[in-house]
């Protein structure tokens, strides 16, 4: 086994070169380059986490904005509904008022018309009564020779016509 038979011969050389190589790896790479690699990794991790943090903040900001926007939208919608309701009520009232005015006017005109009809009817009746009384007076005079006073004739005609109109009714 050369490991044993050569031991005393090569041990110092083995130790020396191991010390050199191990030392170079330890100080050159382990203490020189390793921290730089580690700091790069750390910097990246930090960057990633800070970016994530930022993204999270941005998202919550966006959500807040959205919530505000939604609230404003809701408010505006409610306002619009209120205005529409009010306008509807107002227009309904106005329409009602106009209808009422129109109805009163129409009623008035109808009343006036009725009045005129009544007046016309009364006038017609008066004329009719006059004519009828006259006719009755002459008919009585020609048939009987009795002179009837104008007033009596008028009274009788009026009474008769009154009966007729009541019967008609």
């Amino acid at each position, binding site marked *: 086994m*050369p490991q044993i038979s050569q031991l005393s011969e*090569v041990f110092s050389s083995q130790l020396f070169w191991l010390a050199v190589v191990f030392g170079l790896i*330890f100080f*050159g*790479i382990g203490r020189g380059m390793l921290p730089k*690699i*580690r700091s*790069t990794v750390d910097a990246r991790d930090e960057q990633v986490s800070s970016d994530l943090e930022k993204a999270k903040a941005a998202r919550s900001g966006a959500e807040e904005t959205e919530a505000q926007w939604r609230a404003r939208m809701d408010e505006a919608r409610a306002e619009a509904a209120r205005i529409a309701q009010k306008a509807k009520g107002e227009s309904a009232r106005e329409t009602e008022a106009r209808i009422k005015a129109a109805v009163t006017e129409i009623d008035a005109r109808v009343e006036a018309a009725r009045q005129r009809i009544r007046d016309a009817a009364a006038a017609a009746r008066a004329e009719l009564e006059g004519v009828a009384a006259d006719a009755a007076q002459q008919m009585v005079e020609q048939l009987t020779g009795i002179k009837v006073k104008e007033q009596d004739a008028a009274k009788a005609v009026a009474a008769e016509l009154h009966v007729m109109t009541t019967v008609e009714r």
Partner: protein
Amino acid sequence: MAAQGKIDPMHQFTIEPIASLHIGSYNVSFTNSALWMVITLALIFGFIALGMKRELVPGRWQMAVEGLTGFVDDMVKVNIGSEGRKFVPYIFTLFTFILVSNFLGLLPLAIIPGFHPFTTTSQFSLTGVLAVMSFSIVVIVGFWRHGLGFFKLFVPHGTPVPMIPLIFPIEFISFWVRPFSLGLRLFVAMIAGHILMEVFGSFIVNGFNGGALGWGVGFLSFLFVIFVVALELLMCAIQAYVFALLTTLYLSDAIHLH
């Protein structure tokens, strides 16, 4: 291959000087072992240096390097906690050095005549030094942090008082056995795997040289070697991981005292 036609499975572990060097009376010759250590260093350095662009969005290579350093970081963090950060360079050095050395030893370079890869981690003169170094750090950290209170490590929590004289020596011995188990595990795993591959490789060569039965043996050995190489690849990674993991566990013991 040592002598004519004979296959010596131990030959691959022989350390041969390449350039003779001396410091004082010490022999520090540049050997094939030293050469492969330097190759290990060069590979690790190259691998890390190519991933040092330090970009925010890493490329593939940088990703691989950060994966390796992150792996060691995580291992230390999980086993020691946040105090373990200062041990990361040491654990990283251990892990990468053992891992790359193990894998280098498996390179099929013996196809080139007169040339073969040298597995530095199959030398207990090397794994032993690594184990003693890890163990020394554990002991130094333990006494540094806890003073004589470090001896509480040998008395687990909740031990009944009459049991202490019995438990203490057992724990004490198991503690001192740690460097041996640490160093020997790696050494044995490496040397056993390499001898196994070499032996079955020689079966293939000798089998195909001799008769119809030999062909059968050679073919079976070939199948077996494929399996063993796959297993060895796994073993290389596992042994490096185990060495680093056990060092972190021992360090965690020394820092937290159970």
